[in-house]
C-alpha cells in the first residue's frame, strides 16, 4: 500500500552518468516494469528505490514522505534478487524467517507467518532444506516467500526470472502476476526481456542510456512507440526499420516503395513495420518490397522469413506452410494500416 514518486532522480559515479533525471509516479498496487538493455540504468534506479544506492540528486517519496536519506534497512521494502540471494547456511524456513527476526516481529508469530508465506508459493514441503538442495525454480519461490513474509509496502524484483529456463520462466511469470494481484502490493520489476515486460506490466518504463524513453501500458508501448529505440526493442523479431525518403505521399528506398503516405510525413524518414504486418505478396496483391531470401526458419507454428531488400534485412512472420530456397527472389506486402514513421535525424515518431 504505497505510492512511490521519483523526482529528478540522478545517479553519477564520478563523470559517468548512470541515471539521468528520472521522474516517475508509481501508483498504489501498480506493477511497474523497468525495461531496457543491460547498462541502461534500470537496476540502479531500482536500487535507489530500495535505498541500496545513494542518490546523486533528486528525491524519492513514499506515500508523500521523503525517504531519500532513509537507510535500506529502515524502508519498508522487500527485494527479490537476480541470483535469489538466499542465505546459504540457513534452511528455507530460516531464510523466510530472517526478515521477521530482523524487524523484531514477536517470536510467537514466526512459525505461523513463515508457513503462510511458504504456502503461497507452494514451498511448504521444502522448509527444512538448505538452498543448495533446491532447484532453480524452488530457490526462486523461496526468495519470493522471504519477500512476501513481512507484508512490505513495496516489492522490488531485479530480473527474478533470468536464471530460469524458458519453460519455468513462463509458469513463474504467471505465478508472480497472480501473487501481486492477490497481495495488492506496489511492485517495481526490472527486466531486459520484452516478453516478460509485455506480459506482466500494468505500465512499462522503457529505459536507454540512463534516461526514460517512454512510459505506458504494454499496448501503448507495442502499438504506439515513441521513437525508434522503443520500436526496435519491443517485439520478437523487432520492428523492421527502413530508412528512406517520402516525396508526394510516396515512401521510397532501394527495393521498397509504399504509396499513400499521409501528408504530415515528408523528407528523410524511417519507415517502421512489424514482422507480423508483413506477408509474402500473392499474385493479386500490392508488392511493397522485393528481395532475396536470406533465411527461412520454420518453427512449426509459423515460419520466420528474412529477406534482403537492398541494404535492409526484412523480418517477416510468414504462415506455417511457407517454404522457399535461400537466394530466391520474393515480393513482400505490407499492412498499410500499420505503418510507423520516425524522424531520421532524432528517431522520434512522426504522428499523422
Amino acid at each position, binding site marked *: 500500500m504505497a505510492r512511490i514518486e521519483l523526482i529528478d532522480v540522478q545517479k553519477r559515479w564520478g563523470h559517468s552518468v548512470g541515471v539521468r533525471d528520472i521522474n516517475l509516479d508509481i501508483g498504489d498496487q501498480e506493477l511497474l516494469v523497468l525495461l531496457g538493455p543491460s547498462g541502461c540504468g534500470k537496476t540502479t534506479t531500482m*536500487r535507489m528505490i*530500495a*535505498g*541500496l544506492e545513494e542518490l546523486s540528486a533528486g528525491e524519492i517519496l513514499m506515500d508523500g514522505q521523503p525517504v531519500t536519506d532513509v*537507510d*535500506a*534497512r*529502515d*524502508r519498508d*521494502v*522487500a*527485494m527479490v*534478487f*537476480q*541470483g535469489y*540471494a538466499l*542465505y*546459504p*547456511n*540457513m534452511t528455507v524456513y530460516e531464510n523466510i524467517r*530472517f*526478515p521477521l527476526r*530482523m*524487524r523484531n516481529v514477536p517470536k510467537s508469530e514466526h512459525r505461523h507467518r513463515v508457513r503462510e508465506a511458504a504456502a503461497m508459493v507452494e514451498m511448504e514441503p521444502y522448509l527444512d532444506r538448505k538452498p543448495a538442495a533446491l532447484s532453480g525454480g524452488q530457490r526462486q519461490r523461496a526468495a519470493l516467500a*522471504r519477500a512476501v513474509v513481512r507484508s512490505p509496502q513495496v516489492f*522490488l524484483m531485479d530480473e527474478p526470472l533470468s536464471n530460469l529456463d524458458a519453460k519455468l520462466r513462463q509458469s513463474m511469470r504467471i505465478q508472480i502476476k497472480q501473487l501481486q494481484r492477490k497481495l495488492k502490493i506496489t511492485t517495481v520489476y526490472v527486466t531486459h526481456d520484452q516478453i516478460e515486460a509485455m506480459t506482466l506490466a500494468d505500465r512499462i518504463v522503457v529505459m536507454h542510456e540512463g534516461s526514460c524513453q517512454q512510459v505506458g501500458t504494454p499496448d501503448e508501448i507495442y502499438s504506439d512507440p515513441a521513437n525508434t529505440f522503443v520500436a526496435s526493442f519491443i517485439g520478437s523479431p523487432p520492428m523492421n526499420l527502413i530508412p528512406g525518403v517520402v516525396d508526394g505521399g510516396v515512401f521510397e528506398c532501394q527495393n521498397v516503395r509504399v504509396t499513400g503516405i499521409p501528408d504530415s510525413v515528408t523528407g528523410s524518414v524511417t519507415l517502421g513495420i512489424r514482422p507480423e504486418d508483413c506477408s509474402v505478396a500473392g499474385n493479386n496483391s500490392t508488392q511493397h518490397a522485393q528481395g532475396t531470401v536470406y533465411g527461412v526458419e520454420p518453427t512449426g507454428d509459423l515460419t520466420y522469413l528474412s529477406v534482403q531488400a537492398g541494404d535492409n534485412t526484412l523480418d517477416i512472420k510468414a504462415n506455417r506452410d511457407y517454404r522457399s530456397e535461400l537466394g530466391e527472389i520474393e515480393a513482400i506486402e505490407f499492412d498499410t494500416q500499420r505503418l510507423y514513421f520516425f524522424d531520421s535525424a532524432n528517431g522520434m515518431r512522426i504522428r499523422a
Partner: protein
Amino acid sequence: MAGKSGRRSENRFIRYLILFTWALFCLMPILWFLSIGLRPRIEIITPQPIYWPSFSLDAWKMIWQDWPMAKYLFNSVAAIFGSVLIDLVLAIPAAYALSRFTFRGRDDIAFYILSTRMMAPAIVAIPIFFLFRNLGLLDTIYALMLVYAAINLSIVTWIIRSYMLDIPKELEDAARTDGAGDLRILWEIIIPAVLPGIITAAVIAMIFAINEFLFTLLIASTPNAYTMSVALANFTGGSDGVIYNAIALVSFIAMVPVFIVVLAIQKHLSRGLTMGAVKG
C-alpha cells in the same frame, strides 16, 4: 592412424611414471623417518650401511623419562591455539572491512600483507624480543601466542578476505533490505558463508605456527615456555651429541594434536579445499 588402445596404455605408463617420481620425492623424508625413530641409537651413528635394521624403543623411553615432554606438548598446543584465536578475532572484521568498504589505500594494504610474508623471519624477531622484554612477557606462552598471531595475522586476513570477495554482494543487499545492520550481516550472513575459509586459514596458521622455530628459540629461554619444536634443539647439542632417534620421535608426537584437529574439521576443510580454496 595409430590404434587407440596401444597409445592409451603407453600414456598411462607415462602418467604413472611421472606420479611415481613425484611421490618418491615427497615421501622420501617420511620413509627415512620411519627407518630411524625406531632403531637403536648405535645403528644410526655407525658409518657402515646397515641392511637389516633392528627394532628398539630406546628413544621412546628416553624422551618421556628424561625430559618433561608433556609440559612441552602442552606449551605447543596452548601457544598455537591461542595464537589462532587471536588471529581470527582480529582478522575477521579486518578482512570484512578490506573486502567490502572502499577507502583510499585499500589495495596498498593488500600488497603490504603479501610483503610481510616475504620478509625473512629474523627481521621481525628482534623488535619483538625487545617488546616482550619490556612487557615482562619473555619466556611465557603468552609471548609465543602473540608472536605466532603477529606472524600469521596478515596471511589469515588475506585468506579470509579472498573468501569474502567470493560472497555475492547481493547477499548483503538482501540482508540489509531484510532489516539487518552491519554487525548482524557479518555475524549471521558473512561468517557462516566463509566458514570453510576461516577453517582453512586457521589450519594454515597452525601449520605456520608449528613450523616456527627462530622466534620460539628467542623467546623461550627456559623449559617454562619450551615448545616441542624448540625442545628438539636440546637433542642436538650437549655431551651426548645429536640424538637423532629421539628427535624423530618427538617430531612424531608434535604431529598428533594437528592430526586430531584436522580429523575433527576434515569435512569443512575438504569443502574449503574443493571450493578451490587452498590456491596458495
